[in-house]
């Protein structure tokens, strides 16, 4: 246990400046959330510009949260890279793989907590009140999925450069798959729905008409897809840390992505 904490403290110390900055941004998000809720609930008619500004700030800070995770987790994972043969420092030291995994898991938990809490908490500066929105299942799962996906990708790469390249490639593929799925969805529905084939249909109306077809309103597909992502990412992280089997890890990650996309197709495109 002491070695786990020793290792964890080392990672905290290594990332202390970025962590400090992140905590500051997280606090700013809590404040921004407070202002945003305050504006929306109590004075919706007043100062529309202010409302948009707070909404923009809140959105930007949420993205910043994700970026901090994407920077800090690889930084911590690559301190003791799990692939390649050049980085030999930790491999030849008496640190067990399970100790390393446990210490990194503590860091992932910290990242998750910061991301989750800053998104869920609001501070109303005028009333000097603190508000916790409560456990939002989709939000919680989303944060955990992001943290573990970043950790999984970091565990499969040996440096930040490689991580960045793989993340960029994965992002492009993801965007392409999203576009392809949307196109498939559009074509499929246009074939069965004459209203969508009307050449006079305006893009804004198309959006509205498609909105009702995306998925059954009673079920949010994220509630199935996100846990699936979490399960695959956690498996990859645990497998690579405990056994060092990177190729198998890559295989599981690819299988996870394919299953994720298939689930997305089946859950979001109605079988009309």
């Amino acid at each position, binding site marked *: 246990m002491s070695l786990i904490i020793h290792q964890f403290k080392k990672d905290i110390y*290594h990332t202390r400046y970025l962590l400090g900055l992140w905590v500051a941004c997280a606090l700013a998000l809590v404040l921004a959330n407070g202002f945003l809720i305050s504006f929306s609930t109590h004075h919706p008619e007043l100062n529309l510009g202010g409302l948009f500004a707070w909404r923009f700030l809140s959105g930007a800070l949420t993205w910043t949260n994700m970026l901090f995770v994407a920077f800090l987790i690889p930084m911590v994972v690559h301190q003791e890279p799990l692939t390649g043969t050049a*980085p*030999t420092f930790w491999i030849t030291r008496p640190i067990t793989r399970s100790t390393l995994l446990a210490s990194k898991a503590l860091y992932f938990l910290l990242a998750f907590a910061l991301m989750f809490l800053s998104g869920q908490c609001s501070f109303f500066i005028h009333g000097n009140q603190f508000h916790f929105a409560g456990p939002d299942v989709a939000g919680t799962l989303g944060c955990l999925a992001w943290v573990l996906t970043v950790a999984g990708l970091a565990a499969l790469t040996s440096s930040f450069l490689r991580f960045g390249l793989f993340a960029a490639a994965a992002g492009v593929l993801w965007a392409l798959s999203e576009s392809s799925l949307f196109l498939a969805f559009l074509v499929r529905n246009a074939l069965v729905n004459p209203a969508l084939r009307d050449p006079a249909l305006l893009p804004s109306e198309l959006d509205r008409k498609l909105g009702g077809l995306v998925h059954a309103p009673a079920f949010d597909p994220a509630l199935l897809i996100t846990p699936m992502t979490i399960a695959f990412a956690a498996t990859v992280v645990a497998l690579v840390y405990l056994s060092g089997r990177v190729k198998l890890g890559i295989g599981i990650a690819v299988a996870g992505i394919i299953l994720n996309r298939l689930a997305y197709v089946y859950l979001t495109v109605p079988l009309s």
Partner: protein
Amino acid sequence: MKPIIETQNLSFRFGSNVAVRDLTFQVPEGSICAFLGLNGAGKTTTIKMLMNILRPSGGTARLMGVDSKKLRSGELANLGYVSENRELPEWMTVRRLLSYCKPMYPTWDDAFCDKLVKDFNLPLDAKLKNLSMGMKVKASLISSIAYRPKLLILDAPFSGLDPLVRDEFIRGMLELSGESGSSVFVSSHDIDEVDKLADWVVILNEGHLHLSESTESLQTRFRQVLLTVDEEISRLPENLPASWLIPESSDRTVRLVESRYEANETPETLRRVFPGAGELTFAPMSLKEIFLTLAKSFRATTEV
């Protein structure tokens, strides 16, 4: 002889290239072993297999009686390693590096560590990334010997170091070996530094084991031979014994290195091959001279 390192048909392939082939040798416990070979001989690959950084394509390696593939934290706590690239967490200061390593080793010796820091004149509060190559090697060595490991493995630790740092490094190594009875396995392609230290030698050539024996036995069987003959020799005879290395002649003088010197037999054989031989001189050779002879002999064989 109880071996601290033992390999059996150890091999490694990079694709179709065989970097190390059927290496079988033993290093006795308590010895300082020089692991020698020209560049590309397979020294680093072998060391990486010993340290379980690379998985052997074939054969086995045992360190302190444990299969290298099964080295766990218990064994690693008794094993020191300074890599060729001196991989260190460069963001740390020397002080932080040492305090980071300390809890991992139950046998960490603070007094020994402090002494080494003082002897090496290491700036404790400097970041590793800002240190010179020599200082980094010293920091790496301290972090690898302050717990008095049973076995210290050093991969080309002297390359790029100035003579003063080399000397300090060697003193640190000797201190560990002398005080704790630790075994040291040090690879090098330059024999100067280990010439006077090593009591065991393992020499590799193009992935093959050339020899593994004590320095004493090696120095007993290698002799620099000088002989003069009656008439000028235009060409050396064919089919000289295989144990005669890099034979050469000029005017009436013949020089060669006998790698299987026997006080009774060698002079007789020389006189049989060179019937007009006059005075024979057999000079003992240093480890450096032996290694250079072997290296030249390897090159000559490759060129042929």
